């Protein structure tokens, strides 16, 4: 029997496969197509302290090998989230990871404090990397001091283990990774989307209303693998790898690069069964390789 179980911050995950925040709604959107309990965790769309309407439309557009999005963190605020979305999430047997964001350092802490006593949450994922909101978020993720300050604010406000999600839009991601580790992050999630732009050649207008959006999809995978690999060398805490993963082969690549777990985002839009297929493919791969434990695959890149 092949073991797919991994641990992050002392918590057990049945397997290392989970959705990327913002691509899986609040865990119930795809439940008709597959049971979210098969996943190692469910990661919710980012919530903020207060409700937020997000950006104007068009918010997304297709590009080569992926898409641009600038949703702008539309969300219902933490109170309605707890009332309306937690009841379903509590029925799930898998880990529940709640992604949070704020416009100020203190707001991250206040939000974490409100969510701390809420029953059914296993982790907080701290989004300091959304490229699409003017006031904050990515600004925290591109500066090591700010990244550390946010991490500390959240860590001081909750007993829950925290994952800090990093932006790739920096010169050296290991600087940020080290800063959040030192500030108390239990794990790192890398990476969020790349700032990108697309223009309608007929009208001359940008294809999304926000002009600049976050590029995701298979096109970013090699860069994401490289960044996960670099972060592995720089920190000791576990890394959740994300960026362009669309099949089990991609997942194996991230695990070999050093990721303890992986997230699937854009690929779910194209094929909603991508994650269950990755779990099956990963299991078969390990069996064929004669590897009895997925943990033995992590960081096995031979350089």
């Amino acid at each position, binding site marked *: 029997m092949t073991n797919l179980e991994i641990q992050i911050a002392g918590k057990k995950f049945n397997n290392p496969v989970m959705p990327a925040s913002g*691509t899986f709604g609040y865990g119930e959107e795809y439940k008709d197509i597959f049971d979210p309990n098969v996943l190692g965790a469910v990661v919710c*769309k980012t919530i903020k302290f207060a409700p937020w309407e997000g950006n104007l*439309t068009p*918010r997304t557009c297709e590009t080569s090998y992926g898409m641009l999005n600038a949703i702008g963190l*539309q969300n219902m605020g933490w109170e309605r989230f707890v009332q309306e979305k937690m009841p379903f999430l509590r029925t799930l047997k898998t880990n529940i990871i709640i992604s949070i964001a704020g416009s100020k350092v203190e707001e991250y802490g206040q939000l974490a404090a409100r969510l701390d006593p809420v029953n059914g949450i296993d982790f907080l994922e701290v989004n300091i990397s959304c490229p699409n909101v003017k006031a904050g978020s990515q600004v925290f993720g591109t500066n090591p001091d700010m990244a550390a300050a946010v991490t500390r604010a959240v860590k001081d406000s909750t007993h829950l283990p925290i994952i800090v999600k990093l932006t790739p839009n920096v010169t050296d991601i290991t600087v940020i990774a080290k800063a959040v580790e030192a500030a108390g992050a239990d794990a790192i999630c890398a990476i969020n989307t790349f700032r990108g732009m697309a223009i309608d050649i007929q009208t001359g207008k940008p294809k999304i209303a926000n002009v600049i959006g976050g590029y995701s999809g298979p096109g970013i995978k090699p860069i994401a693998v490289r960044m996960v690999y670099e972060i592995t060398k720089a920190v000791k805490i576990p890394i959740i790898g994300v960026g362009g993963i669309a099949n089990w082969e991609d997942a194996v690549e991230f695990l070999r690069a050093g990721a303890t777990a992986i997230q699937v985002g854009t690929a779910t*839009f194209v094929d909603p069964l991508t994650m269950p297929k990755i779990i099956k493919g990963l299991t078969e791969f390990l069996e064929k390789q004669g590897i009895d434990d997925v943990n033995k695959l992590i960081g096995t890149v031979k350089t």
Partner: protein
Amino acid sequence: MFQEFGTITDKSCLAPGIYRLTINARKIAENAKPGQFVMVRCYDGQSFLRRPFSIAAETGSVFGQQSTFNLIFKVKGHGTQWLSEQEIGYRFLNMIGPLGHGYNLTGIESKKILLAGGGIGMISLVSLAVELIKIKRQASLPKVHVLFGDKTIKYMDTPYAEHLAHWNFLGELIVTTEDGSYGHQGMVTDILPSIIKKKAIDQIFACGPKAMLKKVAEITQALKVPCQVCLEEKMACGVGACYSCVCKVKGHNMRVCKDGPVFDAKEVDWS
């Protein structure tokens, strides 16, 4: 909602650049309601995301009683081009559906209904017309009238326009073309107020370009006639997960794919 592979069982070109594919996909077909849609994966080598298409009932058939439905679409880009090139017998049409809420049909038996469609938007209303056959079978119930507009006669000779006229539950079929090549010259919204008054319409269902729907909303609100509109937006997931396809409804961004695509016209912020 299901992910299902459909088989193309029939195909025709209805007008230049407009195609109708009949798809056998039992689970989606049996659960579909008028106004709902499917997300189709187009394997043209360039399209990345799925494409949304309105589920159209088969001419003369009723939703839920057939294992087939139609996709009627205009070729606009790589994805629709690929779809138009698929032939009868293709078995791997990768779809997710039925998606969204359809038209709300509660309490409409006794209503004097007008279906107002513009261009390819007529497709979702044709499915609604098919459903109305079921509801309005009794001869004593008020007839359903249809108002349909497009740029030119080129798109008018679709079997739909003709079949609609023959369905005996239907009242009048009124057609407008912008160039006057068929029916009334002008737009649907030019003659909508007079039709509402003349036929004492008390329920409208509309689908078409956003500019048309905006005007329809203004007219129906001024005349105090309830109106449901079926909206279109660019989508990524189609299931409510990504929040790409929002429109302002009652002051909040609602997802067209999951909270719609049918909304109450007076609740939509058209600005």
